[in-house]
């Protein structure tokens, strides 16, 4: 169960680590969407913060992750992929793409699911703050 080279690279040089402020700091900022998924007792927690402009484009993304190397790599990769994308484009990212890109073994698929969840969760937070009702809200929630 050695890690793939891409996982090791993301682990050693994680992209976009950090945040735009503490939870309290960003709670009222309408340009920031925050997603926190997972739980400490499950061994992984991912925090994703997105800065989204008026056109609905993700201008910047920051993550923090408590989790194994595959979880760190999955969230790091997610930030890379969504930066510059529109919210709608970001929502098309599927965990299977992350699995493929990072060559995750079956026992680590849950890490990719968590990353996809964190994107959806952060976008939902942004939409909620801005009173946007997503077209496919029910569908998206049912997907997990």
């Amino acid at each position, binding site marked *: 169960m050695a890690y793939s080279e891409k996982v090791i690279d993301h682990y050693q040089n994680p992209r976009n680590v950090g945040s735009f402020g503490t939870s309290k700091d960003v709670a009222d900022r309408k340009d920031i969407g925050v997603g926190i998924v*997972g*739980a400490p007792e499950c*061994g992984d927690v991912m*925090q994703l913060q997105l800065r989204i402009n008026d056109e609905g484009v993700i201008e910047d993304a920051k993550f923090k992750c408590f989790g*194994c190397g595959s979880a760190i790599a999955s969230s790091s990769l997610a930030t890379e992929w969504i930066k510059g994308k529109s919210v709608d484009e970001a929502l098309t990212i599927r965990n299977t793409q992350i699995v493929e890109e990072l060559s995750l073994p079956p026992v680590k698929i849950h890490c990719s699911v968590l990353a996809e969840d964190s994107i959806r969760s952060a976008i939902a937070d942004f939409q909620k703050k801005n009173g946007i009702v997503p077209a496919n809200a029910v569908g998206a929630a049912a997907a997990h």
Partner: protein
Amino acid sequence: MALKFPIYMDNAATTRTDPRAVEAMLPYFTEKFGNSASRNHVFGWDAEDGIEIAREHAASLIGASSKEIIWTSGSTESNNLAIKGTARMYAKSPEGTKNRGHIITCVIEHKAVLDPCKRLEREGFDVTWITPPPDGVVTRQMIAEAIRPDTILVSIMWVNNEIGTINEIPEIGKLCHEKGVIFHTDATQWVGKMPTDVERDCIDLMSWSSHKMYGPKGVGALFVRRRSPRVRLEAILDGGGHERGMRSGTLNVPGIVGFGKACELCCESMDADRERLFGLKQKLERELTSRLEVAQVNGHADRRVPHIANISFGYVEGESLLMGIKEIACSSGSACTSASLEPSYVLKNLGIGDELAHSSLRLSIGRWTTEAEIDYAIQAIEKSVNHLRTLSPLWDLFKEGIDVSKIEWQSH
């Protein structure tokens, strides 16, 4: 001396075979390669001699007579034979009935004890599962409170393999002998490292394994007391009647010879090894807990073997920590040793909390661990923990003064 990487600190999982044990084994593959059950030629006699010398070494390591040693394939088999063999032999009523007898064990035993006990539950035996306090120590008092008139077997490990805590084995042994209950201990992490006297300590059945004490894999032993009381067992492996009928099958002659040699070597160097390892472990624990915030040593403060250190580093996930210190081979409570991703049931059951279980590192040292390796490990772990905390959203929350355990997490 330059360090050689990776540094091995997973001696509780398995040890390197001592080259002297390998050397002792070699003639038994290609020269004295007979089947020890062959009674009619020198190949068989040589093999049998090798077996019997090994039996003497194994017996004298634990204060037993050589006739009380049964060879097995390892601790898992020894534990299965001891537990199922005793229960089925001393059952109070036949198969298919209920209340066949009472067994006492503990929730933080090795799976090779837990799973046989669970199977016996399904076979109609009644099992009391003791949960020790957070320090992990099973005491005489806990057993005394659990013993009933129908108790047939108590099975308590000598040392816990994850946290290294030492249970009150001599005290429990004496209690069991007073009460007329058969006492088994899984001594896999004890024998060869600590002085053992089954006679003085009233042990009836004791399992241990060659590959945890610098012998080869694939060999284990079960001590079976022959007098006061004479313990009888129903065999698990039938066929041929080897090992006094308790364990059939062609003996693993080279493996047993290597195990015997490893027993002899442990006899010789146990005292020196123990003292040296204790010093190294103390340094490791002291440095890591003083250099890093929210780092706690798991298990009892003093009642622990010198070769196992289990430390939780708050807000850092164990598997990612292993990845960060990949030049050190050790294990974490986060990823179970078998294929499961469940956190350590040992740490969970001690009420340490799942979160700290996920944040734990087990460093287990051995005969070839050097002080330079310990120093390296301290540096590497400190650096990696600090790095991972810069990535950790939980660390931020902790630093903001938020109690992570009070948050309602969105579990998935």
